[in-house]
């Protein structure tokens, strides 16, 4: 498998996982976080498949195509180690989807970054909220989701924050109100 094959496989997996994530959160309110803008292709795709969602982008340095750059109110510019904790305070429990495309050629660095991101996901995500990532950003309370057809395990990752306790609480509150 050549680097061209690997790149095509990765981009197709990314697209399939984002499309699946969009279906999964269709009934879940809340904004999207795009961690890593790069050239802006996946941000462009997210906007296209979820035109009504607010999308916040995290990037150290913007280098995207001009039509793939969010406005200043939706851009967290800087080191994600500073910006993500700040976002976690602002959006605690509200985020419907996090897409993290952090991969570089440095696997050790990627693993550290993925676990840093994973540590903030339980705070950020709404119950049932979804994470699509190019690295294993699983966290203790995460449920690993089945990958779309054609996506090989390890090429991309899909997780959800378990809805159980949240849903149970809502149901309990509803049944309490109804009785």
């Amino acid at each position, binding site marked *: 498998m050549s680097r*061209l094959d690997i790149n*095509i496989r990765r981009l197709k997996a990314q*697209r399939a996982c984002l499309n699946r994530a969009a279906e999964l959160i269709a009934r879940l309110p809340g904004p999207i976080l795009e961690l890593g803008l790069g050239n802006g*292709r996946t941000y462009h*795709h997210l906007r*296209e498949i979820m035109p009504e969602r607010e999308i916040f982008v995290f990037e150290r340095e913007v280098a995207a195509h001009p039509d793939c750059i969010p406005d200043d109110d939706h851009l967290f510019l800087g080191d994600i180690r500073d910006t993500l904790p700040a976002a976690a305070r602002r959006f605690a429990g509200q985020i419907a989807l996090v897409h993290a495309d952090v991969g570089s050629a440095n696997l050790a660095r990627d693993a550290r970054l993925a676990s840093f991101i994973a540590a903030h996901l339980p705070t950020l995500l709404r119950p049932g909220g979804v994470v699509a990532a190019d690295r294993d950003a699983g966290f203790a309370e995460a449920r690993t989701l089945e990958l779309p057809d054609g996506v090989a395990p390890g090429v991309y990752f899909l997780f959800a924050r378990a809805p159980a306790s949240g849903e149970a609480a809502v149901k309990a509150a509803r049944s309490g109100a109804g009785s």
Partner: protein
Amino acid sequence: MSRLDSVIRRLQAQRACLEHAAALVPELPGPVFELGLGHGRTFDHLREICPEREIFVFDRQLAATAECAPDADHLILGDIRETLPRAARRFPKAVALIHSDIGTGDARRNACLAACVAAHLPALLCPGGIVVSDQDLAHDGSTRLALPEGVGAGRYFMNRAS
């Protein structure tokens, strides 16, 4: 169509055309030229599908990692408007396959560069040699080849030297 959709479509077209071209030139001796190395992904693909061929890579500067770059003897650095005519003297009508992916966001620059590359193709390609490219590189005596299935017209180009 998002930019993600369009890059996937472009890379798949590129791969399909390279594989189609490689399958069309097995009888032709001669090296392969890769114009524009970039990250080295298509170079890596070319050496995988043409393992017995010598591949010469042309680029202005080296930006790929060592894993996806040719050795120094097969890397020709510099402005293609100078390096290509030199290569034509070294490999006159001897090149079996040329892949040219030198397009940027600048349409006028792309057209100039494409015209320059096309002008050197008759001197470079062996009879029946093929040029696969992101811009149309039809040249003197060339025949436009049908694109492989699934590749939309205008997405990639294949021309064969007479």
